């Protein structure tokens, strides 16, 4: 049995659209496999310590808050990169991805540094872009996932480590290039907002496997899978 420790950073500053429920459902599944879980939150202006955690989570947030978060987060760049390179599981949703690139622009035209783990740059448009997405996860191309984006920014630059091969809908960039999200070692990121883990058993399983390793057990996803199939069927109908 494992006691999985999850660090949820900026839970108050980056908290839009039910994203935190990703951790609620993840915790439920960890318990269902007979393991234990503990979630610790760390906020803006507090000291961040990543070691000792199995996973780190950052959610989607307001644009102004993201800029404030960046000023606090970027000084930890080396520590963050070290953890990710060493295989710590990260799960990042929505515009929080912008923190991990070279830089991102703000609504007033400013530019803010990211931690530089990836080559991409975040570009703020000040316009709401909304789209559904269905795609296949790179770790299992038999599976299909559903995502939904509501964003004002996009990522510019080649997506070298996509999480999903897009069948229909949004990509990381401004124009669809068939690639969405990031999967680099155990770092997962997606623009899919809201409870993407709740609605996509394939993604939930993959994260559980990487967290629980030999203590991983299969759970009952009947309801979630049925719900997803109904969504996918609507895309087939067109």
């Amino acid at each position, binding site marked *: 049995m494992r006691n999985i420790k999850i660090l949820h950073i900026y839970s108050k*500053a980056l908290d839009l659209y039910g994203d935190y*429920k990703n951790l*609620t459902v993840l915790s439920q599944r960890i318990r269902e496999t007979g393991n234990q879980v503990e979630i610790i939150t760390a*906020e803006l202006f507090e000291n961040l310590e990543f070691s000792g955690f199995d996973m780190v989570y950052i959610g989607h947030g*307001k644009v102004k808050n993201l800029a404030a978060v960046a000023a606090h987060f970027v000084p930890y760049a080396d520590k963050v990169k070290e953890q990710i390179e060493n295989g710590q599981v990260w799960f990042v949703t929505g515009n929080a991805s912008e923190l991990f690139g070279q830089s991102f622009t703000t*609504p007033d035209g400013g530019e803010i540094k990211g931690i530089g783990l990836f080559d991409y740059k975040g570009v703020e448009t000040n316009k709401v872009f909304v789209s559904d997405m269905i795609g296949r996860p790179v770790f299992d191309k038999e599976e299909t996932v559903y995502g939904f984006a509501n964003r004002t920014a996009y990522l510019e630059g080649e997506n070298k480590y996509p999480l999903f091969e897009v069948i229909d809908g949004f990509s990381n960039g401004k124009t669809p290039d068939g690639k969405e999200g990031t999967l680099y070692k155990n770092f997962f990121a997606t623009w899919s907002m809201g409870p993407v883990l*709740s609605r996509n058993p394939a993604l939930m399983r993959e994260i559980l496997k990487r967290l629980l390793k030999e203590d991983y057990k299969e759970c009952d996803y009947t*309801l*979630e899978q049925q*719900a997803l199939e109904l969504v996918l069927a609507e895309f087939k109908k067109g």
Partner: protein
Amino acid sequence: MRFALTALLCKALSIAGKLLGGGTDLPGKIALKMYPRVMKKLKFDGKVLAITGSNGKTTTANIVAHVLRENGYSVVNNELGSNMTSGIASTLLCACTLGGRIKADYVVLEVDECYSRFIFKDLRIDYYLILNLLRDQVVRNGHPDLVSTKIVEAIAAQPEMTLILNAQEPISQNLAGDNYAVYFAMDRTERSTDNCVSGTHDAKICPRCFHEMKYEFFHYNHLGNFACTHCDYQSFHPDFLATDVDFENRTITINGEQISVTYNTTFNMFNTVAAAALALTAGVSMEEFKKGVATFGGAKGRLDTFDFEGRKVTLMMTKQNAASLDQSISFVLEQAGDKSVVLFINNVLYLDYKDISWLYDVAFERLHGKVKNILCTGNRALDAAVCIKACDFDSRTLHYENDLSKIKEAFRNTEGDIYILAASAFGHEGKIIEELKK
């Protein structure tokens, strides 16, 4: 000449629209196509009041218009749902003379948060009430920051306008800039809570310095007395303060004057303070306000009751946003007796997105032990059920049926009075009622 023709056409289209049962937006839309800056030509004899906010603007605008009419003032106001540029153009062009004069004592406009910046470019607005900014229907507006940026743009176009702002909502309280502003607030009530019980809380951190915000109490969502833990940003001293809110006897005291109202929800009590702040600032006397609000007919069309096999069914229309559904849940919790909740959840209407992330922001946990069953229906019934399951409801409580032709049986499997919470159903809820009556 151009103005007169446009106004005439708008009036004619509006009359034709009423006969044919068409929408109220279309005449204004056509008028704006013909003459884009047509509203710039309007002249007002009376005062122009605009009301916006994520939550409560229709009710508040209706209270204000009712109070004014009850006291013999002539009023022009826009109808339910026509709060964007074209709806406002329809309203005003139908009410003006061919010379562009609006003779009413008061113009009361419910204005969409995102459209005020377009409308305020061309119209003189004297008083602007901003009720609150909460995360709204995700797809339409995005988050409150985006909306507040647009409102700041609207305010900048009207430097002479007086603002009426909520001293218990950190995001919109912050918007005055150089404009003159008055503030309203409501004292702690018996229903206030120490912690935020809603699923959404849009101001956990200070909008000025990003440090943690502390709240003395909450009315609903993040509305309550606040103070930043770091800088000096806090609830301002209110010019209009409600005290002694008595839900049972339906009275509220504003600046020391006891007022009788016709409703007993927290939301409408708060809307009453906002309405009073606006009306009194715009020249209405306290006596006039008291007299008018005492006969207000309430927010019509949101609640409907009927019988299903000897059980009482209440149909409640909500919006596809968490704050609205949280309010409906509060209403359900205030009702006596055994009960079940039916959630009618569909794709994001018009656009057909399969998103239900807003549902995950609803505090369904409040229904634990308080309802017999939660039945999810609509084309996103199963996704809604996945969401409810995530709130730790077991399979005895949680039911789902996405096939409306089987809804009667599904209703029979629930216990107690039934509350149907229909989220932005736009008439689709009629299908459920039709099936139940078969």
